């Protein structure tokens, strides 16, 4: 019995160990060394971590990452829920709208980010042109404006992922038995009360999953930032993953980059545990 179970688990375990667990442990080891990919790693103990906590670039990236996550996660989750409720109704063209919202998720974020860079270009960009028409002129374009660059990449992050979470919510909505809604209606509950006391609690599973996934995704923000701003202007959009990339692949400090990765890993791990704990207590089953 257990042997069969193990046999079934083996393929995914092998993949998981080879591509997730092993690199993670390896990175943990490298974070305690000086390593440049060519020469053998030199053991330096916790020097990388000490350097990291004294590094203003790290704290800047940390701050940007937190702002990004705090902004993007709730907006994505709430928007996904609202869209799901809206698109759960019957109306002409529903399939089209659903697809249109889901589409950005399928396309590579790198490609999408290129499209957005053109849209936001101060000289040829369509969105910049429209913003100009309504009087919102950014002289240098949103992406090189220190106040607007981060919100701009955050917006693309939301736009990219919201469709996927919407689909998850849609699946949840469709699994809510109709008789529960009907019973509530018979008891005289209005739309808001039904949403508040029936729909939302029954979606708590989806909400947990979506929140955890959205948070992790936003803590790992990289692609659109790399393409659209390269972390600029003056590091205003440099997230932790961007910093890892810069320290590793541009400055050839793979040990130091690994240390930042591990700090990020632990940070994500702790936040996920908190989220699980929070939602576990609020889970509802009827």
């Amino acid at each position: 019995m257990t042997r069969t179970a193990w046999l079934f688990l083996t393929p995914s375990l092998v993949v998981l160990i080879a591509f997730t667990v092993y690199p993670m442990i390896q990175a943990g080891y490298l974070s305690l060394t000086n390593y440049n990919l060519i020469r053998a790693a030199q053991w330096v103990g916790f020097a990388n971590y000490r350097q990291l906590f004294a590094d203003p670039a790290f704290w800047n990236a940390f701050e940007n990452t937190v702002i990004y996550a705090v902004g993007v996660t709730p907006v994505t989750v709430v928007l996904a829920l609202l869209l799901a409720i809206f698109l759960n109704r019957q109306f002409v063209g529903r399939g089209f709208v659903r697809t249109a919202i889901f589409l950005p998720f399928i396309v590579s974020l790198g490609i999408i980010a290129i499209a957005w860079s053109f849209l936001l270009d101060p000289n040829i960009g369509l969105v910049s042109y429209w913003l100009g028409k309504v009087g919102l002129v950014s002289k240098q374009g949103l992406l090189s404006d220190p106040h607007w660059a981060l919100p701009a990449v955050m917006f693309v992050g939301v736009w990219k992922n919201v469709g996927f979470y919407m689909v998850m919510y849609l699946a949840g909505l469709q699994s809510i038995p109709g008789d529960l809604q009907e019973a509530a209606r018979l008891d005289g509950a209005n739309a808001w009360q039904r949403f508040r006391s029936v729909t939302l609690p029954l979606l708590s599973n989806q909400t947990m999953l979506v929140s955890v996934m959205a948070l992790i995704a936003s803590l790992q923000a990289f692609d659109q930032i790399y393409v659209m701003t390269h972390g600029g202007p003056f590091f205003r959009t440099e997230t932790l993953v961007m910093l890892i990339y810069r320290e590793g692949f541009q400055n050839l400090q793979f040990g130091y980059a690994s240390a930042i990765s591990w700090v990020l890993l632990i940070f994500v791990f702790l936040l996920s545990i908190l989220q699980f704990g929070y939602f576990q207590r609020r889970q509802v089953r009827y």
Partner: protein
Amino acid sequence: MTSQHSTGRGPGRRIPLLAAAATGILALALSGCTGQGTSTSNSDTGSGGKITLTFWNGQTGPDGPAMNKVIDAFNKSQSKVAVKSVTMPWDTLYQKLLTGAASKGGPDIVALDFTQLPKYASQGLFQPLDDYYKDSAHDTDTLPKAATTASVYDGKNYGVPFDIATTMMYYNKTLFKQAGLDPDKPPTTWDEFAAMVPKLTKTPAGSSKPDQYAIALADNNTVDMYPQFLWNTGGGIVSEDNKKSLLDSPETLKALDFWVDLVKNKQASPIGLSGADADKLFNSGKAAIEINGPWATTGYKDAGIDFGVTRPFAGPDGNALLASVETMALPAKDDDATKQAAYKFFDYWTSNDAQLTWAEGSGFPPLRSDDNAKITGNPYPAIFGAKDVVDDSRLLNPGIASGATIVNDVFYPSLQKALNGDGSVEEIFTAASKEVQADLDKDK
């Protein structure tokens, strides 16, 4: 990135950042599973002892065909060595370089920007080529000094020049005429330029955003435009002995004050331009002046811009201009046979015949200055390679392991901060200077 790193140069060198990034991301995704091409390339010694050298380069622009012409001629010229060129955008090349040059399937020769070389050389990726310069069989004495010394790091020479390019001032004659300026009298000093700014930067009525700028000055991911301004007040980023940061020197601050004021307050140039953005602006007739290398001529001609090329305006205390050098380096893994084969190619590449073909086709000045007169089909090699131009040209941060980091991670971000008014020039660059000094001290 990379850029990163003066993200290469030229169209194709300075490929639009976005396209580069896209390929970069693809490359990142793919490099885990595949090597470059068919991975049989490590100096194959085929039957008859013929060695095939894989040559990585970033000549994706109009300079590519000129290079390939030379390589084809080399391959035909003899039977022992063949060169196989692998051309990719610079961003991609730098991303793959570290793993590529350290592995068997990687390149045998790599062309790269001299600012990138010390970083990799200091990590042991390349081998010193001093024996090439010592052996009188190789004619290296008449190569430009700037080109051969660009690849020196820590007392050893790690490269043989592939090309040298000076950056000059391109100006749009049509826009000069429209502004009521003499199209044959481009500005020759900073003050002359400053006086032209109100005429050349044009803001439509009822808008606060200009639709035409006097100059397109890029402050990130670019061929360096601002640094030469620092030289021309007697300042700079790093002292010539590579030991001291000059960013907080009074001369440097004087230059920065002048240019930050001109760009930020008088809107001489947009803020936040990458090199590709600056090219686009000049290319579409929205900027009257740009500072750029010889690779840009083809694109601007194709775009129908009526432009002139001349020396950039001089500063109050100098008229140095920026030169950049691409150098050919050999990965440390290359064995002696591969190295000797590569030397054959170096000999050929730097020969008069090859340089004539190269200059004629690419617009770059030839590495043999005695060839200038023989180039008839292309006016630009003579302009960019004129003796006074080459003599006054300077390299930015040669031989510093963190040279590219200093420029891209300290200088440009600080400049952007100043241009965005996020502090005074003095505050920002005094702090930046400390960072630069720390980087320099780390290299020692």
